[in-house]
């Protein structure tokens, strides 16, 4: 019976994602993306991964998407941007990629459907995840932190140049 929840959440996700891809205004698309992510968080919860669900909401929807929003607001495309998009995005451009994705979807479904299994209805609490993180996956954690450091430096560099260019452009 509870499986209906899964299907509802899945439907929300898919429709929100479809809308993300087809919007003309960037801000609208971002909002729909956030909706999609929240729906996925529900699915995570149903799968017995509450910690992942929390992370999804807090980091993915809460930090990364917010970052997107900030940048979009900085760029300030507005109505001009919407008009531009309308000009660029024509219906006939969807045919090719649509066909390609359809073929890929069929192939993937074929490959997936050949297995049959069900998820174990077991909750994996955050405690277990934490123990695994500081145990066998310690190295992965360290690597991830180095990756984030690299991204930090890169973003800092780009941002500084942007600010400098902007200041020079304004003068």
């Amino acid at each position, binding site marked *: 019976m*509870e*499986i209906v929840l*899964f299907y509802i959440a899945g439907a929300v*996700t*898919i429709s929100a*994602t*479809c809308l*993300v*891809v087809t919007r003309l205004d*960037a801000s609208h698309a971002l909002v729909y*993306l956030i909706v999609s992510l929240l729906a996925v968080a529900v*699915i*995570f919860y*149903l*799968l*017995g*991964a*509450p*910690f*992942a669900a929390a*992370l999804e909401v807090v*980091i*993915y929807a809460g*930090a*990364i998407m917010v*970052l*997107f929003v900030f*940048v979009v607001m900085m*760029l300030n495309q507005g109505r001009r941007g919407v008009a*531009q998009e309308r000009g*660029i*995005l024509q219906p006939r451009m969807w045919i090719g*990629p649509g066909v390609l*994705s359809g073929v*890929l*979807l069929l192939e993937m479904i074929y490959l*997936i*459907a050949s*297995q*049959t*299994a*069900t*998820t*174990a*209805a*077991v909750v*994996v609490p955050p405690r*277990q995840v934490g*123990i695994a993180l500081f145990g066998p996956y310690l190295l992965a954690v360290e690597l991830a932190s180095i*990756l*984030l450091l690299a*991204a*930090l430096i*890169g973003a800092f*560099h*780009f*941002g500084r*140049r*942007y600010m400098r260019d902007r200041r020079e*452009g304004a003068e």
Partner: protein
Amino acid sequence: MIAISIPLEHVLVLAAVLFLLGATGVLVRRNVIFQLMSLEIMMNACGLAFIAGGARWGAPDGQIMYMLVLSLAAAEVAVGLGLVLQLERRFGHLDIDQASELNG
């Protein structure tokens, strides 16, 4: 906290559909912001697949992998948006098809 048993194929098919929607977005949209968003959709779909795999066995490994994917997405978005700003600065627009000087 609840956990239900769902047929694994259904979750994976959902992940596949989300992944391909993101891929279509990358292939179709010319605006860089939309492409980055589509990439995020794809990565999220991968994360869903991992969680599903972890849930199959009731092990924390799926969630850990999902966390690594998450940190990757964060890093990528940070640098990517910085690039988007530079792109806008230099070209004056966000059309990625116009930025094709690296050819031949």
